[in-house]
C-alpha cells in the first residue's frame, strides 16, 4: 500500500501548523494520561464517582444483556440435560441420599450451636440482604477482576458490602453509583478474605490470582494440614464478611497452603445478594476499600 500523502504539508503554513499542533497535542495527551495514571495508582478512588456515573448510564443495556444471558444459559442447560439424563438421574439419587445424611448431621450441629450460643448469651440473628441484583458485566480484558452490579446506593448498596450467591461468596462492593456498583471479585489480585476450614479452625487468607483461582495462605505455618476437597468458609475476622459463608474448595495443595477454586463461580452466577457489613464498626474502617493493595 502506498504511503499516504497527507503527511506532506507542502508550503502551506496552515497545514504545517495543524500537523505540528496535532503531534503536540498527542504528546500532551500522553503526558496528561501519565499524570492521571500516576494519580490514580496513588489514590485509587480518585475517579470513582466519574466511573460510577458512567456505569450508571450503561446499566439499562447491561440489564438487557444479563437477562439474555440467563435465558440462553437456561436453553443450553436444558438441551445439554437430555444427553446424560440417565447418568445424571443416578448421580442425583446418590447425592440425595448423601445430602439427607448431611442434613441430619447439620440439624444436630444446629441444635448444639443454639445450645452453646444460649450458653454464651449470644442472640441468634438472621442476616437480611440489603438488595438482590444481577452481575451485568466484568472487566474481561483487564488483569483485574471487577464486575458490575445492577444495584447502587439507591438500593442501599455501600462500598465494603459483601456480595454472595446461593453457592457462596462472590466478592465485595468497591464503588457504588446511584444505580450500579463495581464489585471486586474474590479472584481479583487485591482481594484478600479471612477464611477457615469448615470442619475445624485451620485459618488462612484467600487471595485472588486473577485467573479464576484462589491461593489459600495458612496463617499458622508448619505441617500443611490441607487436603484436596477441603472446603473453606469465611471466618468473620476483619468484620466485613459474616462467618460461615462458603468461599472455596481446595484443588491443589502447595508447600505453604493450597490453590483453591471459588465455590461461587461468577461466570455461572446471575443473581446475587448484597449483605450488610458484618460488624457495623468495620464499615468505618473500610474507607479505603482495598487493604490488599492499590486498586
Amino acid at each position, binding site marked *: *500500500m*502506498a*504511503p*499516504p500523502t*497527507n*503527511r506532506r504539508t507542502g508550503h502551506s503554513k496552515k497545514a504545517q501548523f495543524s500537523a505540528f499542533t*496535532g*503531534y503536540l*497535542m*498527542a*504528546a*500532551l*495527551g*500522553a503526558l*496528561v*494520561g*501519565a*499524570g*492521571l*495514571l500516576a*494519580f*490514580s*495508582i496513588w489514590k*485509587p478512588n*480518585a*475517579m470513582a464517582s*466519574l*466511573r460510577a456515573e*458512567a*456505569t450508571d448510564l*450503561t446499566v439499562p*443495556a*447491561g440489564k438487557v*444483556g*444479563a437477562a439474555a*444471558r440467563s435465558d440462553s444459559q437456561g436453553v443450553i442447560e436444558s438441551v445439554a440435560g437430555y444427553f446424560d439424563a440417565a447418568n445424571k438421574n443416578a448421580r442425583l439419587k446418590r447425592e440425595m441420599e448423601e445430602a439427607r445424611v448431611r442434613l441430619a448431621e447439620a440439624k444436630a450441629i444446629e441444635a448444639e450451636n443454639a445450645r452453646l450460643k444460649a450458653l454464651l448469651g449470644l442472640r441468634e440473628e438472621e442476616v437480611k440482604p440489603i438488595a438482590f441484583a444481577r*452481575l451485568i*458485566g*466484568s*472487566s*474481561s*480484558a*483487564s*488483569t*483485574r*477482576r*471487577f464486575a*458490575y452490579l445492577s444495584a447502587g446506593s439507591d438500593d442501599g448498596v455501600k462500598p465494603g458490602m459483601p456480595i454472595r450467591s446461593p453457592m457462596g461468596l462472590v466478592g465485595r462492593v468497591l464503588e457504588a453509583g446511584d444505580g450500579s456498583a463495581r464489585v471486586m471479585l474474590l*479472584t481479583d*489480585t*487485591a482481594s484478600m478474605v479471612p477464611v477457615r476450614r469448615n470442619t475445624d479452625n485451620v485459618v488462612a487468607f484467600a487471595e*485472588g490470582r*486473577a*485467573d479464576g483461582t484462589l491461593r489459600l495462605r495458612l496463617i499458622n505455618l508448619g505441617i500443611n494440614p490441607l487436603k484436596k476437597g477441603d472446603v473453606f468458609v469465611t471466618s468473620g475476622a476483619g468484620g466485613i464478611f459474616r462467618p460461615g459463608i462458603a468461599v472455596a474448595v481446595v484443588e491443589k495443595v502447595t508447600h505453604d497452603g493450597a490453590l483453591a477454586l471459588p465455590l461461587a463461580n*461468577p*461466570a455461572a*452466577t446471575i443473581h446475587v445478594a448484597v449483605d450488610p457489613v458484618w460488624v457495623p464498626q468495620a464499615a468505618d474502617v473500610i474507607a479505603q476499600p482495598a487493604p*490488599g*493493595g*492499590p486498586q
Partner: protein
Amino acid sequence: MMVERREGARMSPTHRDSFGKTINRDHSVILAHAVPLLTILLGSLTPILPIIASGPVMPPFGFMFLLAWRIVRPGLMPPWIGLPLGAFDDLFSGQPFGNAILLWSVAMLAMDAIEARFPWRSFWQDWATASGMIAAYLVLGAIVAGGNFEPQRFLLLIPQLAFSILLFPIVGRIVAFFDRVRLFRIKVIG
C-alpha cells in the same frame, strides 16, 4: 490523458465510481467522522457485555478498533484522539484511570513513527505492527493494573494475546466495512 479521463468522469452526471459526490448524493460529514468514533467507543464498552470472565480473556476491542482505523485510514483521526477516546475506555476497562489515555496516545504517535520509517505497508506488516502494539498494550496494562500481580503471572496474558492477534485481521475487515458505511452517500439538496 489519464488526467483528462478522470476529469471527464468527475464531470459526467452518470458516473458510478465509489468516491466523490453524484447528482443529489453526497457524503455526510457527520457520518464520515462519527462512524469511526462510534465503533471505537462501542469496542470500549465490551466490559458491559454480560460475560463475567474468570481471567483476562477478552481482547481489548477499543484499542484494536483504534489501531484498525489508524491502519485502514491513516490521517482520518488526529493523533491526539487517544486522549478523549482513552478516557472513555478507562471508565469501563477496570484499569486505573489514565492507563488508556497514556497508552492510546503513545500508540498513535508510534503508528506515525512506524509509518514514516516503513512507508510502503503490506498486510503482513500491518498485522505485525498491530500485534506488537497489542502485546505491548496488554503487558504494560498488566504492569500498571495494580493488585499483587507477580511477574511470573504474565503467562496469564498469553491466551488473551493470541486471541487478540488472531482476531485483528477480522477487526480490520469490520473496520473496512464500516469505512464503506462511513462514506455512504446520502441525499442532499442544492
